[in-house]
């Protein structure tokens, strides 16, 4: 955002004027104002708003799963009579091979999905950020070593590495998440490093250096916040990939443990009934698709807001 010229016609209401005030009176007003500006830019993009809606919906569903789901996601009905039923009024999205209600499972599965997404973001982003900024800022042999390591991780077949980790740590959703996180930080490190390289010679970094700031202080306080936005965008865009990788691990039987209603695992089971009982795989598949799409659209919108140079 550059010094935007004043709008000619602006029907500014009190609240808006306060938010957009060129003279904020407190840190909070300044921050909120910035946020509001971002939100305004964001909300102009209908697809991004849809994305946000989807993500919020996901969160709501995850919170209220117990209320929303009509049946237990874990214990099924009678194997002989309620197994693999097509969508109907009783079972909105049909039942699966264990005679469980697919809708209830998807609803509860949203928690797992959210868990995966949040945890991977919380593990991978800081690693990538730290490796990238330290490497980019310090340069020299630190850079060489860190980037070599990054390259090695990057050159590693991703699913294989995840598989190996899961194999080593034992299957289970937490380990799958760790595995995914461990395989997904290198691109973030690369991005953060590229960003850092651009920032590190800028005058404002020179200025803090001249105030005697220590290296950690510069990296954490000044470099990291600037890399964060492009990273957030990237992570959001990667969310779909993360869910799908988790699904891929589930598909290979290494992700979530049954009877946990993990969407990827559900699709994986459903694959056996794909042709005749299409709903078993299709329903969680659609859920994955919608959520990934939501994250992608959101990421796209965020890119416009947080990363104006990439958006153009």
């Amino acid at each position, binding site marked *: 955002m550059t010094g935007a010229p004043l709008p000619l016609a602006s029907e500014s209401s009190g609240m808006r004027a306060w938010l957009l005030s060129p003279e904020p009176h407190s840190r909070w007003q300044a921050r909120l104002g910035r946020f509001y500006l971002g939100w305004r830019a964001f909300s102009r993009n209908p697809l991004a708003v849809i994305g946000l809606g989807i993500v919020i919906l996901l969160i709501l569903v995850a919170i209220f799963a117990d209320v929303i789901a009509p049946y237990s996601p874990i214990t099924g009905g*009678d194997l002989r009579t309620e*197994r693999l039923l097509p969508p109907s009024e009783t079972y909105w999205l049909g039942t699966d*091979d264990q005679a469980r209600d697919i809708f209830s499972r998807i609803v509860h599965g949203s928690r797992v999905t959210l868990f995966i997404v949040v945890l991977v973001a919380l593990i991978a982003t800081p690693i990538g950020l730290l490796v990238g900024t330290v490497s980019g800022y310090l340069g020299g042999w630190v850079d060489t070593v860190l980037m070599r390591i990054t390259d090695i991780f990057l050159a590693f077949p991703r699913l294989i590495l995840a598989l190996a980790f899961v194999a080593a740590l034992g*299957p289970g959703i937490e380990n799958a998440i760790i595995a995914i996180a461990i395989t997904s930080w290198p691109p973030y490190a690369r991005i953060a490093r590229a960003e850092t390289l651009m920032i590190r010679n800028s005058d404002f970094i020179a200025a803090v250096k001249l105030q005697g700031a220590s290296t950690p202080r510069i990296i954490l306080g000044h470099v990291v916040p600037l890399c964060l936005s492009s990273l957030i965008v990237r992570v959001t865009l990667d969310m779909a990939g993360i869910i799908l990788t988790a699904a891929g691990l589930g598909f290979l*039987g290494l992700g979530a*443990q*049954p009877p946990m209603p993990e969407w990827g695992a559900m699709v994986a089971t459903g*694959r*056996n009934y794909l042709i005749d009982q299409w709903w078993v795989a299709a329903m969680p598949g659609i859920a994955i698709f919608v959520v990934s799409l939501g994250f992608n659209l959101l990421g796209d919108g965020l890119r416009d807001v947080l990363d104006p140079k990439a958006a153009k």
Partner: protein
Amino acid sequence: ATPPDTLVQAWQMDDIISLDPAEIFEMSASEINGNTYERLVTYDIKDVSKISGQIAESWTVSPDGKTYTFKIKPNRKFASGNPITAEDVVYSLHRAVALDKSPAFILGQFGLTKDNVKDKVKQTGPLEMTLEVDKAYAPTLVLYCLGNSVASVVDKKLVAQNEKDGDWGYNWLKTKYAGSGPYVMREWKANEVLVLERNPNYEKKTPLARVIYRHIKETASQRLLLEKGDIDVARSLNPEEITAMSKNPDMKVQSAPKGTVYYLGLNQKNPNLAKPEVRQALKYLVDYQAIAETIMKYKGDVHQNFLPKGFLGAETNNPYKLDVAKAKELLAKAGLKDGFSVTMDTRSTPEIMGVAQAMQSTFGQAGIKLEILPMDSKQALTKYRARQHDIYIGNWGSDYQDPNSNADTFAANDDNSDQAKAKPLAWRNAWDPGPLTAKTRAAVMERDGEKRAQMYKELQKAVLDDGPFVIFLQQTEVAAVRKNVDNFILGPSFSDNDVSQAKKN
């Protein structure tokens, strides 16, 4: 579509790791072996108790029951054109024992070792040889073992040509062929394709020129290929797909019970599982019928004894059924009124996973919290062999057609210590079967068929009542075959799956 003189099968056959008969131990490889090699004797797949000669014309057992003499059929040839002689048979047995690969114990159990095999297995004439065993075993046991793939007769001349550094030609034969069966193994590309071709020297010429096995992991892909006619037989379909195929007018569904049982192994190191009431309770917490009719439809029938149907002395009574109340009662008696938590090592195949989840649900009804630990089969096995599991869900296929094969593992445990050399299933579940071990050993020596069968019945009863095994199904192998294929035969064991007389109309 497939060529008229070629049968194309789709199969999950990534388990093949060797085609050397001395090493073959896996399902897929056994089937290939069955169709490409011959053994001294064989049995009728419709009635396995009828044993007949294959390469042997006749045989006799010495009165002390320790020496077997075989006469070889004259004028028969290997696929290479070399004549089949007693020398080849002796060589093959020497070779199997000397190489000492995994299945070598099938011969080794008769006292044959690397060092003594040259004296115990001897050529006594151009078409005559003798085998000497260490004890007077039931002759059927010995003969069944000689009908096993490990005792396949290999072409000595051809193998010797390819021998290197005294390896008995092993490194060559692993991927090549030197036999006399109806088909010749022409090409094997691991995880891709295996091609059998008609053996011109076989006495009963096969109707088909070629049989191709394609490795197709994805069952849905197999089904689509079958429907399109790009394969003739789909071997790995899941129950729902079989159901669909059975309704398809172009297909027929064939099945045969196999000598494999599905069971839960309850580790006796777990204090809860070590209680007899708990073991019993768990046997009442499996919905046998529902599993057999839904998840395992076409894939297995309810079976609760360790000897599969078709084996000598096999019991067919299935006393247990789902009875939650009874189970609760038993649990209360064991002092576990509120149930307990337990894990189950589960191979992540769709079937096993489905069954495990069904059990998870019924166990839950009695308050037992079952946590399923999905893992790869090799991993599950590693843990199982280290006795680190709580419950292991798996299957056990008999190594040869004799009841001892299963009794030896389910009902006998010579040494229950952690350092034990042998690791039968009883040992893996840390179960000391007490007197049953001796009984199992005795049954092997019983030469009277009737009496022997009776002994096995007793053993089965004991294990059924108190053993740490919840046996629930006997496997059925099922294949969807296109209507125009005839004489595609699924036998009682994998080596009996026979395509030698298959033909296409």
